[in-house]
């Protein structure tokens, strides 16, 4: 290691060992400089390492076993480096110690050709062997990448620790092009953090805060008043009884939305101006083009591209809540909007039967039901129009993406009962996934609903699909999961990750069937909804799952 450190990071790395050490010094430098929770990562690791790997094999520099060990050590380095401690609201919004270094594998080369190489497969081996939380890992899947690649990745997914997640390279490239990047920078890009789209090495793209979409509805139903803080936070958009039809209600929601987005952007720009002035990052600026030629710091807009993302949270919850209002109050007229408001204020106390009815019968996002999905599109468009393209303090633009980290739980805690039947303080829907238990028609309908979002105008979306590991047990299951992903990506979906179901989850589902109506398990040569099964069979599957967990 002394010998290696004699050369790097001062000089170009001569071999794979030096390359890995080089990166690690840079990583240390960046995170020491900013002490941030920064999601800094080595980007397209298989592309960077492949030439060194080939050279090592051709010139017999290192054995494959030794190179594997180097990579394993590299993984351990990441794992031993948690994010800086978070406190207060930050800790609640991102309740994790992972540092979100996301290794990208696969995708396309700058010339547009298939980038999957031997190193991509080797790194998948390492991910599977190491089975640790950090670094996080993902594969980029382009229509040009071979099925063999996605199938190898699914074998790792099957082992059930949530990695790698799967991204649509072709969508990422179009997102970046839509944001004005050149095609080569776009192809060299990927996703970092959770799902955030960026042009690696040429862009400063910064998450500038989560935005609580369902909270806006609560404030709207209270004429701009916030029941939690007991303050008039928003403009007076009308007493609830003035919402005589759904359109008026939705307009009021939009007015509140624009008000709070304006507030958010104003605040963001103050913070950004402070960063530009007081928080220079000269070390990081050396690595990001074109900070040097622009003579400007990374935090002051020196990068070639500068994006500030605002992350929308609770898409499923806001959609279902609007849908419930529309369906029960304005279409079925089963109760007045005032009556519904009373139910919300009392957290559905003494109205459990009606709450169940809302939970089960309301058209909800995630079922490929246009009655709900059209509302989701209206919500998306309103949020997009409110944020996208507005100037930032460092000369970039604001854009949206849809991811929560853990803020869907925190944000849920700040809202009372919602019209979709969710009780006060319970978590909101997560990412662009349907609300827990709202989807009832299986994974294809979730994917169809999710693909009605215009992903290409975002900087990333997050979709979680639950999956029983047994579904991947045979070739048929593996092949069809692959086809499920390919279809989602054909429909321009940005990202999907699989929540592999464990015995723990199943036990919980047995206790709380209503919240787990969407849980699918493989029974015997076919699949079914877990809660529909008999007690005995549920126990049997729990035991079976426990067995396969081992």
């Amino acid at each position: 290691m002394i010998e290696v450190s004699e050369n790097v990071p001062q000089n170009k790395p001569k071999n794979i060992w030096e390359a890995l050490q080089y990166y690690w010094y840079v990583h240390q430098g960046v995170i020491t400089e900013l002490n941030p929770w920064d999601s800094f990562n080595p980007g397209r690791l298989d592309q960077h390492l492949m030439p060194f790997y080939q050279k090592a094999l051709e010139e017999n520099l290192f054995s494959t076993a030794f190179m594997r060990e180097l990579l394993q050590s590299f993984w351990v380095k990441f794992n031993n480096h948690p994010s800086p401690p978070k406190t207060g609201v930050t800790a609640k919004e991102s309740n994790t110690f992972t540092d979100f270094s996301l290794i990208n594998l696969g995708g396309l080369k700058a010339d547009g050709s298939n980038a999957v190489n031997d190193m991509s497969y080797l790194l998948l081996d390492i991910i599977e062997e190491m089975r640790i939380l950090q670094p996080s890992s993902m594969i980029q899947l382009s229509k040009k990448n071979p099925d063999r690649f996605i199938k190898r990745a699914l074998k790792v997914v099957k082992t059930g620790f949530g990695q790698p997640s799967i991204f649509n390279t072709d969508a990422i490239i179009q997102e970046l092009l839509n944001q004005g990047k050149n095609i080569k920078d776009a192809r060299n890009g990927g996703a970092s953090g959770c799902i955030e789209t960026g042009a690696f090495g040429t862009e400063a793209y910064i998450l500038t805060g989560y935005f609580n979409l369902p909270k806006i509805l609560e404030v709207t139903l209270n004429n701009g008043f916030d029941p939690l803080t007991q303050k008039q936070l928003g403009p007076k958009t009308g007493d609830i009884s003035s919402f005589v039809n759904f359109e008026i209600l939705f307009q009021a929601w939009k007015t509140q939305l624009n008000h709070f987005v304006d507030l958010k952007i104003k605040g963001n720009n103050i913070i950004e101006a402070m960063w530009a002035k007081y928080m220079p990052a000269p070390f990081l600026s050396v690595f990001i083009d074109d900070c040097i030629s622009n003579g400007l710091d990374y935090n002051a807009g020196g990068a070639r591209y500068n994006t500030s993302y605002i992350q929308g949270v609770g898409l499923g919850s806001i959609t279902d809540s609007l849908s419930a209002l529309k369906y029960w109050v304005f279409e079925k007229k089963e109760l007045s909007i005032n009556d519904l408001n009373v139910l919300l204020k009392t957290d559905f106390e003494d109205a459990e039967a009606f709450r169940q009815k809302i939970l089960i019968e309301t058209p909800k996002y995630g079922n490929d039901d246009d009655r709900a999905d059209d509302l989701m599109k209206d919500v998306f468009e309103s949020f997009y129009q409110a944020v996208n393209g507005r100037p930032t303090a460092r000369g970039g633009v604001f854009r949206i993406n849809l991811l929560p980290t853990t803020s869907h739980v925190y944000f849920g805690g700040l809202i009372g009962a919602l019209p979709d039947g969710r009780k006060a303080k319970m978590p909101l829907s997560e990412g662009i996934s349907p609300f827990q238990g709202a989807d009832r028609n299986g994974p294809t309908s979730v994917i169809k609903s999710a693909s009605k979002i215009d992903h290409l105008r975002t900087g990333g979306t997050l979709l979680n699909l639950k999956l029983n590991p047994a579904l991947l047990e045979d070739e048929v299951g593996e092949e069809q999961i692959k086809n499920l992903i390919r279809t989602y990506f054909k429909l321009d979906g940005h990202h999907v990750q699989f929540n592999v179901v464990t015995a723990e989850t199943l036990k919980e589902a047995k206790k709380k069937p209503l919240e787990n109506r969407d849980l699918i398990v493989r029974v015997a040569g076919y699949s079914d909804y877990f809660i529909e099964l008999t007690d005995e069979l549920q126990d049997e599957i729990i035991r079976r799952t426990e067995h396969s967990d081992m």
Partner: protein
Amino acid sequence: MSGIIFDIKRFAIHDGPGIRTSIFFKGCPLSCWWCHNPESCALGIQHVDFDFKGSRIIGKKMSSKELLKEIEKDRDFFEESGGGVTFTGGEPLLQSDFLQEVAALLKGADYHLALDTTAYASPQVFSKSVELMDLVLFDIKHMNEAKHFEYTGVSNKPIFKNLEYLIENDKPIHIRFPMIPGFNDDVIHLKLMTDYLKSLKKIERIHLLPYHKIAAGKYEKLGIENKMNGIEEPSENMIQEVKNYFLSRGFDVRIG
């Protein structure tokens, strides 16, 4: 025209090739002891009390157009995976006019169609119904007519006649064998069955479906006598033995 459907299952991946939407037709002329969908036996719409959900209606009247609309939703998945639509039940042939109308509508839109059937129907109904099908999933339950009658309530004669019709007409078939302990898993029966399948010359693979107690709870809720009470699921070893036997007779075997 409309028919009675009791379930539509999207992302069905074990009912023919690719990702499929399975349409469950209500009503069945058979009464197999081991039936997994006892709620599908009766032809009409039923009201049943199901635990936490309260009363549930089983069966829904749907027009062929409504059905088409539901099926169209997953077209992208069918195209990506080489999948399509599987008619199952119950027994789709019991609503053969409706089935034929739906099949014609779907074939006009180039869907891959599979029929999962007991094949208990007159030759006229059967031949007309399979005309537009790309694949038939065909159950063989027992070779002996008396045994077949005892456990399913019907003779197996028309069933074999219809199988031979499919063979003569070169229709792609998946033979499915529900393995029921003590009923059809003894070597004498397995030999009879494989001898017969060999004589047909065109069968290469058997899909082995081991008996599962999944439906026990449904019988209770529906208040139907469960004749399988006390009969255990076959063990892994027993399944393996049957699989090996089929392999030794020169058939490819898929479980599930």
